[in-house]
């Protein structure tokens, strides 16, 4: 190969204006269009799903149609511009937070380099401040005096089809993980800006299938998968069989049982897909070990709430379903499984959106008598809070050596860490059941990096994008994998369990992914057990 001259090398491999070509971009950021090509966008929602959702009570998903992001013409309704501006006005009036977030950013840049999408792509429009600016520029243009008078000089611009395409591109390159908001001196929740962008896009029939089909399934059968009651029941029963063959103890279960003390709700992925299955087996073993009086529901058969990723009406309706079922069954309170965004909805939105669950009782552990004051309003206790309390009171017996095949690290799932402050309980549990180490400080707890595929971006057609956005998380796992031989990434979120598996398979082969409760069950000594040597814990094939 010839010796390269840098300029020639740059010209031959770099397309378009870039620092590498010596041509410093001269265009303003507003002038760069969003370009859609296979791999950089998630498939649009099927028209019949959107139409179905729009026909349902309490939901609003108008303008269903077949369209493609790659097409020039998105077949928007004729009055799309009025719909967007009217939609924005309604939201500015309804959500005081949005109005503040639009006004108070001083563009200090503290958030700019905190986003995993920015860190993985280097795309400036993935800086949270810029992503918000995509909406703010329209807000200035139509709702502020300065914007109306000075236009572009004041950072304002008119909403165009190009702007809408940009919104679609970047509101689906944000997982609403809220890492940026931790660093914002004004506490701007950029995730809520993304939520507003997505809401506005839904008004003109622009959404993605990986989100809207699960929402439609949840609305119809109660869970993302669209499982009907008998299928859901069968799946849980299969897991009961598995627990029995591994431990010699057959968990007692019930479905839709009126008068049970506790209703247990977890993401449906836990009863259906690996590696969540092992976490679900863990719940069954744990509840059997302590003799909990609880029931599953085949209607509230989903903890996940993809409604959060669409609009506030869908979020409200899917959240209400869990509580309607708790009321119908007459339980005292709910224990929630290892889910991520369910907890964000419960902790941050439910009280004002659906109202407190006054018809349930303040949760009290029947085993330890602990009153869960933190759940006094929502009446929903996290499985890790519940388990940590059991351990604290010496109610569980462990043989840690049963997890000797595991060297774990702990991934703080974004929603449980940043939206409900659940950081110490899972760590306390891990201390008792497994040998584990922390990842570097600026990648854990409230500074945790997202799996890169949350908010309904866990679809395979954007796998490259997911690998880019998951790089900061994977990079920290690689460090403990290399340094401490970590072979298991524990977490408390079903989306994490699915997506981190793919992320590890790409970046760190040899590192598995599991739920915390799986590790609990691996080490748990159950009275009356007849357990073989399980070299691989609950994953052992007998």
């Amino acid at each position, binding site marked *: *190969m010839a*010796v*390269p*001259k*840098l300029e020639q*090398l740059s010209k*031959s*491999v*770099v*397309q378009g204006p*870039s*620092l*590498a070509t010596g041509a410093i971009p001269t265009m303003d950021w507003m002038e760069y269009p969003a370009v859609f090509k296979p791999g*950089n966008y998630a498939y649009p929602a099927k028209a*019949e799903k959107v139409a*179905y959702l729009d*026909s349902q009570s309490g939901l609003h998903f108008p303008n269903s149609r077949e369209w493609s992001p790659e097409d020039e013409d998105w077949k928007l309704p004729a009055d799309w511009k009025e719909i967007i501006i009217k939609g924005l006005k309604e939201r500015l009036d309804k959500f005081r937070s949005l109005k503040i977030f639009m006004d108070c950013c001083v563009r200090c840049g503290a958030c*700019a*380099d905190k986003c995993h999408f*920015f*860190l*993985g*792509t*280097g*795309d*400036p429009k993935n*800086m949270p401040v810029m992503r918000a600016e995509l909406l703010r520029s329209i807000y200035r243009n139509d709702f502020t005096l300065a914007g109306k008078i000075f236009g572009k000089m004041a950072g304002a611009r008119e909403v165009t089809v190009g702007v809408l395409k940009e919104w679609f591109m970047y509101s689906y390159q944000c997982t609403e993980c809220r890492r940026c908001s931790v660093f914002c001196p004004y506490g701007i929740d950029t995730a809520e800006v993304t939520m507003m962008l997505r809401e506005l896009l839904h008004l003109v029939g622009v959404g993605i299938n*990986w989100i809207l*089909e*699960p929402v439609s*399934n949840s609305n*119809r059968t109660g869970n*993302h*998968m*669209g499982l*009907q009651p008998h*299928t859901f029941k069968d799946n849980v029963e299969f897991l009961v069989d598995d627990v029995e063959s591994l431990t010699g103890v057959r968990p007692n279960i019930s479905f839709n049982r009126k008068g049970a003390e506790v209703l247990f709700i977890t993401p449906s*992925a836990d009863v*259906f*897909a*690996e590696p969540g299955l092992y976490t679900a087996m863990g719940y069954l073993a744990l509840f059997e070990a302590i003799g909990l009086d609880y029931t599953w529901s085949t209607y509230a058969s989903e903890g996940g709430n993809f409604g959060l990723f669409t609009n506030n009406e869908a979020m409200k309706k899917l959240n209400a379903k869990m509580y309607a079922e708790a009321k119908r069954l007459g339980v005292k309170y709910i224990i929630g499984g290892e889910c991520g965004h369910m907890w964000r909805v419960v902790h941050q939105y439910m009280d004002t959106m659906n109202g407190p669950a006054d018809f349930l009782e303040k949760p009290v552990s029947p085993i330890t008598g602990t009153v869960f004051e933190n759940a006094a309003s929502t009446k929903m206790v996290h499985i890790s809070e519940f388990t940590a309390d059991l351990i604290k009171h010496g109610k569980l017996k462990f043989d840690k050596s049963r997890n000797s095949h595991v060297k774990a690290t702990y991934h703080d799932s974004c929603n449980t860490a940043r939206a409900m402050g659940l950081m110490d309980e899972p760590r306390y549990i891990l201390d008792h059941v497994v040998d584990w180490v922390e990842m*570097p400080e*600026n*990648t854990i707890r409230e500074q945790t990096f997202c799996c890169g595929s949350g908010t309904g971006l*866990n*679809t*395979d057609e954007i*796998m*490259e994008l997911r*690998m*880019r956005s998951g*790089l*900061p998380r994977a*990079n*920290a796992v690689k460090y403990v994998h290399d340094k401490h031989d970590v072979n298991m990434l524990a977490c408390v979120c079903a989306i994490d369990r*699915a997506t981190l*598996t*793919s992320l590890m*398979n*790409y970046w760190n082969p040899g590192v598995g992914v599991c739920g915390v409760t799986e590790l609990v069950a691996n080490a748990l000594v159950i009275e009356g057990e007849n357990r073989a040597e399980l070299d691989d814990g609950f994953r052992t094939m007998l």
Partner: protein
Amino acid sequence: MDLAEGFRNHGEKIVDKWVEYTLSTYTSSGFFVKERDIFANPVGGNIRQALGQLFVKLSKGADAGEFTAPLEQIISIRSVQQFTPAQAIAPLNAVKHITREVFAADKERKHLVAELYDFDFAVDLAMLAAFDIYMQFRERLYQVRINEIKSGSHILTDSKCPSKLLTDKKVLK
């Protein structure tokens, strides 16, 4: 002044320029160059670490097999970013030019430019290995996608679950 001493003296400068050039292929190169914490800046941090290691191996005439680890560190990242294969790998070649430029600017080491044949050859070998590694990571990416589809999470939207049939018949509409 022999070549080995020249590499020792100017190695850091060459690597700095090489890193800067490589990171200039990203739109937000400023941050990627500046932030030195590898966990706060995984792209910049990994590329800096790997190019530093690669340069030592290239300049010492190490066996081509030893290029693999640092190359994987760089190419695993660039093969999932929006680069063509050529764009992903091209910055590796820049070290030839940068080394010449740095030596040429030093009066006492100008003559070393004529002695870079072996170094150039090592860079060529690294470039060829980089293409293989690029393909390995692309194939791994496709495999990850296939695994995910097979694992059942696609059932979320495209399953043959009995309840799916109901939607097809529009029973529940």
